Each structure stands twice: as structure tokens, then as C-alpha cells.
């Protein structure tokens, strides 16, 4: 599968990454190479094989509904770029009219 410039542009938008035209060309080549390498797997006959969602065969790992500890005071404040009145501050997002 060829990862062309359009695909790169779309993925960049979804990932919120700004790319220059040169970068798009560069990544198009690199990603096409990687995908092309993995495409070899298409040569296998998988007609009778159930798609696997998960590897390893582990299932039903559950925890009990018991309250544990939460983060300490001030930890989130130190991680957030901006913090005020107990809240993380972000640029305003309003939907609708």
C-alpha cells in the first residue's frame, strides 16, 4: 500500500501535527517502506484463521471494586501547564452557537 501525501496530510491532521511539504514527502516514502515491508504478511493464507484481537491468550483479568489511593495534593498541579482554583486551565472550547 502506498502511503501518499494525501494520506500523510490526513493522518497529520488527525494527530494534530503540523508538517511542511518536504516533511510530508519524506514521511510518505518512509511509511510506505514500513507498510510495504509488513505487507509481506498478505502472502499468507488466512482464509480459515479467526482474526485475533489480542495476543497471549490471557482473559478475564478483573479487579475488585475496592477504593485505593488517589494522587497526592499538588501532584496534578505540578504536571499541568496551567492550573488555577483546583482546575487545569485550557484554551476555551465552546460548541454550538
Amino acid at each position, binding site marked *: 500500500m502506498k502511503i501518499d501525501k494525501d494520506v500523510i496530510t490526513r493522518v497529520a491532521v488527525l494527530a494534530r501535527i503540523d508538517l511542511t511539504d518536504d516533511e510530508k514527502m519524506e514521511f510518505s516514502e518512509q511509511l510506505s517502506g514500513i507498510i510495504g515491508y509488513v505487507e509481506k504478511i498478505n502472502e499468507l493464507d488466512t482464509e480459515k484463521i479467526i482474526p485475533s484481537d*489480542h495476543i497471549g491468550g490471557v482473559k478475564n483479568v478483573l479487579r475488585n471494586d475496592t477504593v485505593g489511593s488517589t494522587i497526592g495534593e499538588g501532584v*496534578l498541579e505540578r504536571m499541568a501547564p496551567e492550573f488555577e482554583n483546583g482546575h*487545569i*486551565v485550557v484554551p476555551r472550547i465552546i460548541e454550538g452557537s
Partner: protein
Amino acid sequence: MGYEPVIGLEVHVQLNTATKIFCSCPVKFGSSPNTQTCPVCLGLPGVLPVLNREALNKAILAGLALNCSISGYSKFDRKNYFYPDLPKNYQISQYDKPICGPGFIEIQVNGENRRIGITRLHLEEDAGKLIHAGNVPDGCSYVDLNRTGTPLAEIVSDPDMRSGDEAYEYLLKIKSIMKYIDVSDCNMEEGSLRCDVNISLRKKGTEKFGEKVEIKNLNSFKAVKAAISWEIERQSEILDTGGKIMQETRLWDSDKNRTNGMRSKEHAHDYRYFPDPDLVPIVLDMAYIGCIKNGLPELPDAKKERFISAYVLPAYDAGVLTSSRELAGYFEETVRGGANPKKASNWIMGEVLARIDDAGMISSFPVRPAMLSELINLIDNNTISGKIAKAVFDEMAVSGKSPGVIIEEKGLKQVTDSGEIEAVIDTVISNNEKSVNDYRNGVEKALKFLVGQVMKESKGKANPQMVNDILIRKLK
């Protein structure tokens, strides 16, 4: 106009577990912002989410109560999008293998039974909360991540509803069932029940669905009904004038009572779902599901049917009484205390429900079932009149005292001593010569007046039937 609305609902119910779905943070409404969080729900690098057993069991129970098939194999997927209330930039949800498959519920609209299909029920985590109002500085929003990772069951209906009334009844039934099985508080104000509407119109008699509009920001069941009415009108008008319905998401404005198109910067959504490698599949056998099924209580529909047949109640009474499990229990306990079922129903639907906002709050109502059955029995054995009983009930609802105590304290016992009643009647007869003559001259309503005077004179304590009988005898 000749259009038929096609309506489907997506309902999110918050499961009432003690902890979040994938971490051990407590789920509590109203805690200080950002305190109920940990590295897992904050999506910090290197953490491992693990499914809460209780959330899984409650989702299965909810599915069973909605007549859904329970999946032997289900898994979790990542739904990718960027939003400030979503710290990981993906929401853990279930895409193609949900925990519960197709089911249905029955609703009654205008006396007619309707079966509404359930497409699926799946588990997912909630996002955080964005705050725009209050003392938030201009150009900024606040983020509170306490809600992040709260367990949700998303219930998707088939596009089976045809009116706002049907959607309303569907929501009431979903809420009633979820509360019966105690998996959610279903409190719309606190956000533990949320609902989005999908609606399209098609020409009556045609099969093909029209272009679908999604309505969000619905903050009450009434808003759901109003938004559907508004959309039906808006879309009809567009179609009538030869226009085309645009597939879009619209927000309900509860102040202006209308929907508005969303001005979204986002292009068509591309969530790029893929299996979450951190979470292993859920594989359930019949034994496990059967074990949960055993915990299923009698559900509203079955209880209603039983109330109709066992207590010989009208369908309407049975419907009201079984709308909440607590209220149904209150009724049955009152009957067990010896009260006549229909009389108990009348008292509960009238006096009791008039005094509480939410039938689910019946457990904290001062008049306990034993006290209500005592009151009903006191009327039945002529200790007090129905009118005095209402006054006694008023007092019971305030003080929580038993009716016997109140009647004793206030001397409200009905007078059934004929000598005592006759004495009062004699006074009334001699004081109301005109009415007495009127009655003797054939004016029937004069009797009613005289009975009223006697009741007034006795402060409502005289037995009305006896007053009536003795008066007629004395006036002959």
C-alpha cells in the same frame, strides 16, 4: 404533511460502583475538583488499566434486564479523538464486540403496547468535565478530571420510536429498570443518566430512512420530548419546501426551546477504533451469566402484571405503584399490614405521592407502611371518618407519629354513641328551623345542610352515616 419520524436513543447510564471502571479511584459526585484521580485515569505513561469486576457484573445484569443476549466473548477498543476532557486522547469503549447484544423493552403509549428494540449495550469510561461558566477567566476553560474513568453502560436503541411521547416512555422505562436492578442512580441532574437522540423523517409508507440528525445536550426527559417535537417541525418544513436535511449534530438550547446546528471545527469524525492492547478479552460462560441472572429481581412489567392479578388493581394503579421498586415495596407492606389493596393504592397515589418529589425517596417518608395500614383500618372499623383521617395523615406526615397516638392526643375518635349524636342533632334542629321546614316541605338539599351542621358541631367526629340516619328519623 405525511412524514413519519424515525427515532433512536443512545442512553448513557453511570454504573453505581464504588470505584472507577479501570482504576481504584472512588466514584463520588461533588468532590473537590481533580482530587479523585490517579495515574491510570489520568492516562500517565506506563500504567495498566484493569477492569472492575462490579462494573462488568452490573453491565451484564443491565443487559439481562433489557432482554439482551450476553456475549460469550467481548473486548475493549480505543476510540481516538482529541478533547481537553480526555487526558489519554482516547476513550476506552467497546466497538464491534460489545458485552451485550440485541434485546428489547416494552412500553405503553396511549394505552397501546410497543416493543422497542435494543441494539446493544456496551461498557465504556466517562470523560472529564469542562467548565466554562462561573469565575473561569475569559478565553479559558477549566478541566476537572474526577469523572474521568467513571463506568458507563451505553444503551443503544433500534430506530423503533415514532414520537416524542414514545421516546419519553422509553426513557422512563429504562430508568425504572436500571433503578430496579440497582445498577445506576439515573439522576439526570448529576449526569448519571444522559441521552442523545437520533432522528430522521421519511415519507409515510416508505421504508428508506431519511438523513439522520443527532441531538445532544439534552438535560431532562422533558427536553428530549421537546427537542424531538422541534426537530420534527424543523425537518418537515425543510422537506416541504423541497430542501435537503443535512446529516449533523445539533444541540438543544433549553432556554430558547430549540435546537441549533453545532459549529464544529472537527471534520467528519474518524475515531480509528482498534483493540486496546492493555485490556484482555472478556470470555463468559453460561454458568457465570446464570449466576448473575439469579440476582435479577422481579422487573417492573412482571410486577405490574402481578399487582393487577394478585391485588385486583386497575392497570393504571399498578403502573404507578410499580414505577419504582421502593414504592411497590411500600404498597405491598401496607397491604401486608392488613389494609385493603385498592384503598392502600388510593392513599399512596393520592396523599403519599403528593408529598414526595420522587417515588424512590419513599424510604425516608415519615409515614411508614404499618402506620398507613393502621390508618386505613381505623377508617374501615369506623374509629375515624375519612375526613378526619386526612387530617390525621397530615399530622403523621409531619411528626411521624402513629395514627392511634394522634387520634388519642387530639381526641379525634369518631363518635358512634347514638345518644351523644342525638344530643347534637337536637341542638342543630332547634337552631335551624328554616332548613328543617324546607326539608319537611320536600327540599332534599336541606338535609345535606343539616348533616353538615351536625358534623361541624361535632368537630367532624360524628359518624356521618349515623348522623344521616338519625336526622332522617327525627325529621319525619
